[in-house]
């Protein structure tokens, strides 16, 4: 049988081969040329550099909704804070509230009536922000199913006696009111437009009075904002804000290194030192309201014993967790309240690592020889996985055998809730600057979250939670919250591990980026600059 390969070729065959080869080369050239020619939205790649009037920020998590009443995912919340305004907003270090739509406000002597006087603001379509819009937005959020209405249960009515005045009347004194109204859920939306279009349609192309106006939303991919032409504040130093959605950690870091993004959210903790060492980059570790803790479900008998819980605290090496899980970029935890937030009790110190003392305390408990338990962790949570390993190792030294159970996120939550759990990795971040929210969730067994699913309660602490909520004197409130923190510290219904910061990385061509302890960065966008690079 003759092999076709061995048969002599003829001139027409050779020229046809040459043509085919040229066509293939041409295709590849066209593909590459198309790429070089189309810079698209990317910056820093072959053929173009970043424009100084554009800021590109890569988020780790997708934006699910731009409806402020439905917000709960941080990355979506930060978007709505760019688009909308509230009556007030938290200041840059998260310790107080400052005016936003409300230029000023008065509080009646009995603390039951708050009167807000609106400044001159317009939505991005040019229509004025009126008191009716404020009233509508607050009431809509209060009554939103599964929303944040529980924060304003003390609100009896919201009225708009004239276009520039909003009056909030309470059924009982409510100290956190200003902090609650500064929350993202109470952002102001244009009543007439929302009713005309329907909420579902409106929130695909929302309009607000914030600094930024959404111009394009490619779901799951990116959002583009332009400066609101009717923005009342100082004009920002760049005109376009692009948010890219890049869930893969490695891809996000590569995007920054390739200068396709100017800022990236949440770079992996174990890469912070490497990124800091890069001469073209800078890293940020912003103080946050995040508290990492271990839930101890008291339906599991050993955790009902206060001596056991105390022993666990001394047995765990928090310093090792900070080093292993966060490369040293975290602070050991003491109070259940976020680090240095309003009324944080600075006299409480992290439990020292003392396995001998832990063993001694355990010997005085109902379980002197230890016991077997499990710890639920979330898969692919690098810091959490490292933390679990430290805990297992530390508790083994005092005779407690911990089985680590790893689950996907929602499955882990399902296993941790419901009162059938043992140990579980959890965390908390504040939505408001006031301690009422975290205290209600973490200390009041009837506050809705069963004291962070520990099912613990202390009558004195519970009484103080309710008293502090209605106490308008800041000094008295401080004393109450300090006392609550001491009770929780002493009884340790859960194990406070650490306070971890918000991590960001950026090119060194970005100046002035800042995230507040609540996580939002919209304030810094007012003055941020982006150099050409």
């Amino acid at each position, binding site marked *: 049988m003759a092999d076709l390969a061995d048969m002599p070729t003829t001139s027409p065959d050779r020229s046809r081969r040459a043509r085919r080869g040229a066509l293939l080369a041409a295709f590849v050239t066209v593909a590459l040329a198309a790429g070089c020619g189309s810079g698209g939205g990317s910056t820093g790649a072959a053929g173009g550099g970043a424009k100084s009037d554009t800021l590109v920020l890569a988020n780790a998590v997708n934006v699910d*909704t731009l409806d402020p009443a439905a917000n709960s995912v941080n990355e979506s919340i930060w978007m709505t804070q760019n688009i909308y305004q509230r009556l007030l907003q938290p200041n840059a270090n998260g310790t107080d509230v400052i005016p936003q739509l409300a230029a000023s406000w008065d509080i009646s002597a009995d603390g039951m009536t708050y009167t807000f006087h609106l400044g001159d603001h317009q939505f991005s379509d040019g229509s004025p922000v009126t008191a009716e819009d404020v009233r509508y937005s607050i009431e809509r959020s209060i009554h939103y199913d599964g929303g944040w209405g529980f924060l304003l249960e003390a609100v009896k009515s919201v009225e708009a006696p004239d276009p520039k005045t909003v009056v909030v009347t309470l059924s009982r004194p409510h100290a956190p009111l200003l902090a609650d109204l500064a929350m993202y859920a109470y952002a102001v939306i244009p009543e007439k437009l929302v009713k005309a279009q329907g909420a579902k349609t409106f929130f695909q192309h929302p309009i607000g009075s914030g600094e930024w106006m959404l111009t394009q939303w490619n779901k799951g991919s990116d959002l583009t904002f332009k400066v609101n032409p009717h923005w009342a504040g100082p004009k920002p130093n760049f005109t376009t804000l692009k948010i890219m959605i890049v869930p893969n950690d490695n891809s996000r870091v590569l995007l920054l290194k390739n200068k396709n993004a100017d800022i990236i959210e949440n770079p992996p903790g174990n890469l912070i030192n490497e990124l800091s060492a890069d001469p073209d980059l800078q890293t940020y570790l912003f103080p946050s309201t995040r508290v990492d803790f271990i839930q101890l479900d008291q339906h599991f008998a050993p955790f009902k014993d206060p001596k056991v819980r105390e022993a666990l605290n001394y047995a765990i090496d928090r310093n090792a967790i900070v080093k292993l899980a966060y490369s040293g970029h975290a602070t050991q935890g003491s109070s259940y309240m976020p680090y240095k937030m309003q009324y944080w009790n600075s006299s409480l110190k992290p439990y020292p690592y003392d396995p001998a003392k832990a063993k001694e305390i355990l010997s005085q408990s109902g379980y002197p020889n230890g016991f077997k338990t499990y710890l639920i962790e979330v898969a692919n949570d690098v810091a959490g996985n490292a933390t679990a390993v430290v805990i297992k190792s530390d508790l083994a030294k005092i005779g407690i055998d911990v089985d680590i159970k790893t689950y996907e996120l929602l499955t882990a939550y399902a296993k941790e809730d419901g009162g059938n759990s043992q140990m579980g990795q959890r965390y908390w971040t504040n939505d408001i600057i006031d301690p009422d929210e975290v205290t209600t969730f973490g200390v009041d067994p009837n506050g809705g979250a069963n004291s962070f699913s520990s099912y613990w309660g202390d009558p004195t602490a519970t009484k103080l939670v309710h008293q502090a909520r209605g106490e308008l004197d800041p000094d008295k409130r401080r004393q109450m919250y300090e006392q609550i923190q001491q009770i929780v510290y002493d009884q340790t219904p859960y194990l406070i591990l650490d306070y971890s910061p918000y991590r960001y990385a950026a090119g060194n061509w970005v100046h002035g980026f800042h995230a507040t302890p609540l996580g939002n960065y919209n304030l810094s966008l007012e003055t941020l600059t982006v150099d050409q690079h």
Partner: protein
Amino acid sequence: MTGRFGFLGRRLLQLIPVVIGITILVFFLLHLVPGDPARQILGQHYTPKAAAEIHHKLGLDQPLWTQYKLFMERLVHGNLGDSVYYNQSARSLIAERLPATIFLIAYAGALAALISIPIGIITALRKGGIFDQVTRVGTLITFAMPPFWFGIILILFFALKLQLFPVSGYGQGFTDHLWHLFLPALTIALAFATILTRTLRTSMLSTLRMDFVDTARIKGVSRSTVLMRHVVRNAIVSIVVVFGVNLAFLIGGTVIVENVFSIPGLGQLLVDSVSSRDYPVVQGTTLVLAFLVVFVNLITDVVHVALDPRVTYE
């Protein structure tokens, strides 16, 4: 029913039990998995009371069979329900993400064909030569490499080091899509091309041994004509079927590549919606992906019949 229309009609009718089977399987399997969509919506601020409100709003407090019945009633009218996560219709969400996945699959398929056909032909003609040896080892390596690792390597080299392509994303406009999706499509294509190359090589070698090839040459037909009109034309039929079957698998395999390259396609949507227990979107996406697989298989069969007159529609 006979002929091509009968064939098409029968295949479309076969879709009905396939769709029903998929909806039952996905619906009940998903609900068996622990995890509450209200948890995803509420995050750490989950309270049983707030969760109950959400369950009621979404109809999740109804018995499972009632929920399934409602879903099927809506499906008959083309309504896939509303996403619990995005607060928009599942159908519009899927419609937004579908183009990116189809573009990626088509691009990967085209690249795979462009790579595998010339290489398959050359390795068959130069059997045992250096090119053949190198290709056989190379295809083993590309086939063994996990896509998520290989994708990152391509990004590191072509995007970061050489700055030829972007790190991630989909871009805007046709040429921008071509540029953005080149690396992800190549990631898929290289593994795909391995199978096609080896199949074509084997098929070519088998065809080259046939008597009609010798007969054609003896009769004076040129080498290139014998090669392209007789050998390749016959050999390529085998890879059409392989191409179609593997393309259908690729549709499900885009999940990893879409995640690594942050492409807003159906694969990424499916992963996100399973993670957040967004039941309507999971059901809708699985249905659409199933349709795509069936459609690709159908096209494969039609092309197969067109290329090979020995195969009929019966």
